């Protein structure tokens, strides 16, 4: 609990309407996009400018009060879950687009600016901001930097880390850090990369300079159906081997296809085991050439049906099914749990077969949606939280999927972050020396571990308590035991 003296000091820093600590005001902030984890914050601070952010951090530092930064709250790993006795620092009011420089192709924005709002503001110059996480109408750029967000186009256009130039950020001690610059590199260590994806553990961002790209002249999508997922997976590799880097390359399995089709009527074939959506974009002539190659490769790779979207309307329809896959799966079951592992693509058939075995073992259905180009797999585990024990079962199943991803040479999180959700699996993916170093990197910025404590990187003794251990030579100790 925060002391009345601290709260009154906090109130003195901000206008009255910017500090919330009545229960009904706090409830909207009790979770992020991963709603199975909830915790009512002690107090919410909603600063309206950078100076207020700095003042809050200094106050918290002086009182050794922890701070959890939060943007739009769309994160999927519990990274912005309130921590007891901490201030929840919500940056959504810092939502100004400060400058757009069309010639230098940059935009300077505050952290609360929505991802899509940047592209909307740049559209008049025929420019856009490339990373497009599926939550882009709601998620904000500060959170994108904190999570190193990707999107369906990241195989070609990169993640957040590839698309930002400069940050203004504050340490917990209230020290301003100006990281990166307006040129293409900066002297010293690459702190821009270190802060990107650091999940609010190192500093609080108050300004981001992003790169803008020219909008592609043309984009076109091809849909291909396959009789089995392994053939579809091989087709993805063949497209890349043919020298094409598609702008988007997505795969869905049978359950995901059926759910999406029932929900948005995208026109997907329903008699196939896997569906591939391959989008190529760029200059007009290049798109024509690439489309030709992609169709040839798909045919040679055993696609049972190949359709090119004939109009922009049809292209959007093809995508609508994929983009609605999560809510569509949500209609099949009272609850679903979205996982986020990355695997080497060649391991896809093996991983999907193992997931399907585990699905039978746990008695929980799974729909698979796959950013096939970059190996990022999103199994959606269907469950009913109202049935006693099902949530625990879903979580146990999920953690075994993540361990499987590590076993085949992948990672427990491709784009959603560790947050609170995957903190135990960090003990599986990393050995003690690396975890130790992560904790030391943390204290290089935040010696008292006041920023987002308990998230992203586990304390070592917790790994021992959880009994979680790193996979060694592909073998977990006691592989027969469910882990959680």
């Amino acid at each position, binding site marked *: 609990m925060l002391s009345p003296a601290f709260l009154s000091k906090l109130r003195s820093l901000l206008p009255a309407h910017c500090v919330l600590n009545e229960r009904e005001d706090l409830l909207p902030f009790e979770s992020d996009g991963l709603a199975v984890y909830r915790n009512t914050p002690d107090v919410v601070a909603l600063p309206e400018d950078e100076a207020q952010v700095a003042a809050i951090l200094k106050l918290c530092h002086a009182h050794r009060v922890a701070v959890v930064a939060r943007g739009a709250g769309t994160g999927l790993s519990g990274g912005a879950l309130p921590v007891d006795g901490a201030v929840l620092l919500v940056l959504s009011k810092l939502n100004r687009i400060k400058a757009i420089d069309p010639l230098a192709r940059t935009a300077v924005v505050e952290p609360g600016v929505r991802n899509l709002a940047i592209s909307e503001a740049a559209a008049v110059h025929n420019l856009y901001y490339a990373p497009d996480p599926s939550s882009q109408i709601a998620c904000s750029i500060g959170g994108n930097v904190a999570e190193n967000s990707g999107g369906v186009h990241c195989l070609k256009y990169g993640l957040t880390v590839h698309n930002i130039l400069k940050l203004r950020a504050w340490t917990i001690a209230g020290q301003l850090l100006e990281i990166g610059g307006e040129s293409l590199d900066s002297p010293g260590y690459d702190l821009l990369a270190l802060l990107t994806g650091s999940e609010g553990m190192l500093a609080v961002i108050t300004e981001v300079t992003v790169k803008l790209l020219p909008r592609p002249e043309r984009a076109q999508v091809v849909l291909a159906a396959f009789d089995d997922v392994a053939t579809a997976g091989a087709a993805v590799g063949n497209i890349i081997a043919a020298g094409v880097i598609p702008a988007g390359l997505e795969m869905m399995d049978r359950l995901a296809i059926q759910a999406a089709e029932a929900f948005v009527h995208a026109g997907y074939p329903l008699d196939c085991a896997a569906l591939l959506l391959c989008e190529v974009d760029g200059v007009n002539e290049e798109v024509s*050439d690439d489309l030709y190659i992609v169709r040839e490769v798909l045919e040679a790779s055993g696609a049972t049906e190949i359709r090119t979207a004939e109009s922009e309307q049809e292209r959007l329809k093809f995508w609508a099914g994929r983009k609605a896959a999560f809510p569509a799966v949500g209609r099949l079951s009272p609850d679903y749990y979205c996982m986020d592992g990355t695997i080497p693509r060649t391991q896809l058939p093996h991983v999907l077969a193992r997931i399907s075995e585990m699905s039978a073992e746990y008695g929980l259905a799974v729909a698979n949606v796959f950013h096939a180009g970059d190996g990022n797999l999103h199994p959606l585990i269907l469950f009913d939280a109202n049935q006693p024990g099902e949530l625990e079962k879903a979580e146990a199943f999920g953690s075994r999927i993540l361990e499987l991803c590590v076993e085949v040479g992948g990672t427990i999180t491709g784009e959603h972050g560790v947050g609170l959700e995957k903190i135990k699996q960090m003990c599986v993916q990393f050995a003690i020396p690396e975890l130790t170093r992560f904790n030391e990197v943390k204290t290089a910025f935040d010696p008292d571990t006041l920023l987002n404590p308990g998230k992203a990187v586990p304390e070592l003794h917790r790994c021992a308590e959880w009994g979680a251990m790193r996979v060694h030579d592909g073998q977990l100790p006691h592989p027969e035991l469910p882990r959680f």
Partner: protein
Amino acid sequence: MLQEISERVRAAYASDSPLIIQGGGSKTFYGNADEGEVLSTRALTGVVDYQPKELVLTARASTPLADIEALLAAHSQMLAFEPPCFGGPATLGGCIAAGLSGPRRPYAGAARDFVLGVRMIDGSGQALRFGGQVIKNVAGYDVSRLMVGALGTLGLLTEVSLKVLPKPAEEISLQFELDEATAIRRMNEWAGQPLPLSATSWHAGLLTLRLSGAASAVHAAQARLGGDALKDGSAFWQRLRDQTAPFFDKRPLWRLAVRPTTPPLNLGYAQWIEWGGAVRWLAAELQPAVLRTTVKGAGGHATLFRGDTPADGAFTPLAPALAVLHRNLKQRFDPRGILNRGRLYPEF
């Protein structure tokens, strides 16, 4: 070999004696003078894994860049950041530790953008592994990218995994006679349009640019832009990348990194501009303080690239708050400051 290197580092840690990490030695001119005994990584060679369909290559640190590029070329792939070799036996480890990229950088990304994972030995001799061999990975802090450009001061790289890309089917280079100011404006205007640009340069009244991609796209862009096609375009870009053009022989050679739209920096000496205007090479005896101030005003920083190091070091000194973080990080990765002491900043 790995064992041996790690024992050398442990021994150096125990006796508090500095080490100079050396691979191919092609970039010894870069950075500040370091001190200590040379620790060669030359034995750490070989491609560990290369999966063209996964777009991922993993190789030991001293694998020659030339070998890697030849292997990739055999599969019509490439290192898209076009790393410079400076005509020497450059290695992968040195390439990543120096973090330097070539002409394609503004359009395809820098060395740091393609690093997926590293294995390394820190300043206490501890072997560590960060990142991995997959393109998307957000578990833990991005320590792999932190190593890029750290000049070995945070650890000795033993293995690096990189994302690779297909080689463009066609490349042509075009030349235009243009004054400096117009050339800078054009480079930026064109970069804001959907054109298959992959490199830009301006020097001595000539704007040179490279178009890369599908043959049809490259030829359509050529028809639109005009200019004179360069007969041996690839030799031109290689001379710029490896600095074998005579312009780069003069000392001191400064690298001025600026906001790409920065108008001509009237410093009284000829410059060679690349990276869409974001890098200006300058060979002239000018006061470092004057250069640093000018370039800071243009949103960037100045590096003494070749020649005698100025009193404040080869790289632009860090703001105090960042200097503290650098020292903290150095202390965690190399507690006794034995790895490439002074190479990046004289104080560590």
